[in-house]
C-alpha cells in the first residue's frame, strides 16, 4: 500500500470568495472543517454549496473563468499556494459526484484507475487495494465474484458505491460528496449513508445535500448557506454541531429553512 505521512484532513477556510467571471457567487466564508467527522453543507438551490465544495479539491480550476479568493488550509497547508499541485491535492482530497460516473471499463479497472495512475503496478498490490476499497465502500460482497464485469452492468446504487470505492482507492484524507444520493432510490440511499457512517472513522467527509433529514442523520456538523438576493453573493449563515443546528439554531434564517418555511 502507498505509504504516506499521516495527516488528518482538517480544513480551515478564511474569508473565501468564489467568482464566476465578474460575478461573485460565494462571498466571505470562514469556517473550520474538523478531521474524521462528517460536515454537511445545506441550503436552498443556488446557494453556492457545490461551488464551495469544489474549492476544496480545486475542481473549480477546471471550469475556466472561476477565481477563488481568501485562504484555504488543509492541515495547515495553503492549497491555493503556487507550490501546491492540484493533481497532488486531488489524491489527498477525493470526490464523489451527484450522478454515478463510473468509467466505461470493468469494476476492477474502475477501482484500480487512481492507484495505477499514481504508479502502483504489482498485481498483488492492486488486488489488495481493490478489495480493500470495495470493502470500505460496502460493495465487496456484491461484486467479489464479478470484478471483470463491465461497471455499467451494476445498478445505480452499486455504481455510486463503486465511485466511492474508486475515490477511496487513492487513500484520500478527505472525501467530498456532492449530493451523492440524490439520484438514487431510498434503499441505495440508506446503503450510502451507512457507508458514510463507517468511513468517517478514517476520512474526513464533506457532504453537500438538499435533504435536511439526511444532514441530520449522518453529519456531525452542519453549515447553512444562503443567497439572500440575486445581486449579492451567497454567504455562510452559520455552522455548528448538527444537533444544535437542528434543535436550537442561532439564526432565524436557519430556523426558517430547517422548519421548511422556504427553499
Amino acid at each position, binding site marked *: 500500500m502507498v505509504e504516506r505521512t499521516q495527516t488528518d484532513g482538517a480544513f480551515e477556510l478564511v474569508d473565501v470568495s468564489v467568482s464566476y467571471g465578474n460575478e461573485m457567487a460565494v462571498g466571505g466564508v470562514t469556517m473550520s472543517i474538523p478531521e474524521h467527522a462528517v460536515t454537511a453543507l445545506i441550503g436552498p438551490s443556488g446557494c453556492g454549496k457545490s461551488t464551495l465544495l469544489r474549492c476544496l479539491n480545486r*475542481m473549480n480550476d*477546471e471550469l475556466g473563468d472561476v477565481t477563488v479568493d481568501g485562504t484555504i488550509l488543509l492541515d495547515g497547508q495553503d492549497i491555493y499556494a503556487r507550490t501546491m499541485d492540484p*493533481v497532488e491535492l*486531488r489524491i489527498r482530497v477525493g470526490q464523489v459526484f451527484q450522478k454515478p*460516473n463510473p*468509467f*466505461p471499463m470493468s469494476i476492477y479497472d474502475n477501482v484500480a484507475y487512481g492507484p495505477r*495512475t499514481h504508479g502502483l503496478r504489482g498485481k498483488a498490490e492492486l488486488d489488495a487495494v481493490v478489495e480493500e476499497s470495495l470493502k470500505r465502500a460496502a460493495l465487496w460482497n456484491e461484486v467479489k465474484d464479478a470484478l471483470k464485469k463491465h461497471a455499467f452492468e451494476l445498478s445505480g446504487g452499486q455504481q455510486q458505491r463503486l465511485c466511492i470505492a474508486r*475515490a477511496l482507492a487513492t487513500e484520500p484524507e478527505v472525501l467530498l460528496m456532492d449530493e451523492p444520493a440524490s439520484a438514487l432510490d431510498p434503499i441505495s440511499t440508506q446503503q450510502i449513508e451507512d457507508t458514510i457512517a463507517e468511513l468517517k472513522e478514517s476520512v474526513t467527509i464533506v457532504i453537500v445535500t438538499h435533504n435536511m433529514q439526511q444532514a441530520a442523520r449522518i453529519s456531525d456538523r452542519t453549515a447553512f448557506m444562503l443567497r439572500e438576493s440575486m445581486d449579492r453573493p451567497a454567504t455562510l449563515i452559520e455552522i455548528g454541531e448538527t444537533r444544535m443546528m437542528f434543535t436550537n439554531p442561532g439564526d432565524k434564517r436557519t430556523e426558517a429553512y430547517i422548519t421548511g418555511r422556504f427553499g
Partner: protein
Amino acid sequence: MIAASGWLAIVILAAIAIFLFFNATRSFEEVGLWKMVSGEFWYPTSDPAQYGFLPSEAGSLWVTIVGLVVCVPLGVMSAIYISEFASRRFKDIAKSLIEFMAAIPSVVFGLIGLALLVPWTQKLFNLDTGLTAFSAGVMIGILTLPTIVSIAEDAMHAVPQDLRMGSLALGNTRWQTAYKVIVPAASSGIFAAVMLGLGRAIGETMVVLMLAGNSGLIPSQPFVSARTLPGTIAGELGEVIQGGQHYSVLFAMGLVLFVVTFLVNLAADSVLERQRRRWRR
C-alpha cells in the same frame, strides 16, 4: 413518405450496382472478371489489349496506406487537442477553419501538391520524378484530415463531462484523462472517423490523377509513379469508344471499386454496431 425515402436510398444503391454490372458485362464475356482483377498488365491500346487491374489496385493500396499514415495520427491528435485542451476561443476558430478546409475542392489540393509537394518529394528522396504514390498519398492524407478531425472531435466531445471530472478528481492530469478515459470512451466514433477517412482516400480521384504519375507498372513501394482505380477510370473514360471493350472494362473497374468501398463501410458498421451493443449494457 419517410419510409419511401428510406427505401429510395436502397433502390439507388441497387440501381448503381446493376447499372455498373450491365455496362461491364461485355468485359466479363470477352476478358473475364478474374483475368482483369488479377491481371498484371494494363495495356488497353495494344493489340491484343491487356486489361490487368493489378497496377491500379496496388497503386490504390499504396496511396491509401500513405494517406492513412499521414492523416490518422495527425487527425486523432488534433481532435484530442481541440476537444480536451484548447480554450473555447481557439476551439471555435479551429472548428470553423477545419470545416472550411473540408470545403476546398480537391483540385486545389492537387495544384498545391504539384507546385510544392512533388518537387520536394523528388529532391528529398532523390527520385527521377516527384509524381509518385507517396506524393499523392500525403496530399490525400491532408485532404482527409478535416473529415477525421471533425468526426473524432465530435465523438470525444460527446463523452459525458462527468467522466472527465471523475478522472480529474482522482488526481489525473488532463493528458492522462484524455488517453485513459476519453479516447477509449470515444473509440467507436474515432474508428468511424478513420473508416470514413479511408473511404474518402480510396475514392479520391483528382489528386491522384494530378500527383501520382499514372504509370502502368505495379508499384512495389510508394516512391514510384503509380495509378489508382479511380484515377484510371477518370483518366481514360473520356478517350474510349462508348460501348466498346475498353469502355466496358472501365465499368468493371468501377464495380470493383464499388464493392471495395461497400465492404469497408460494412466492416466499419459491424464494428460500430458491436461497440454500441457493448455500451448499451
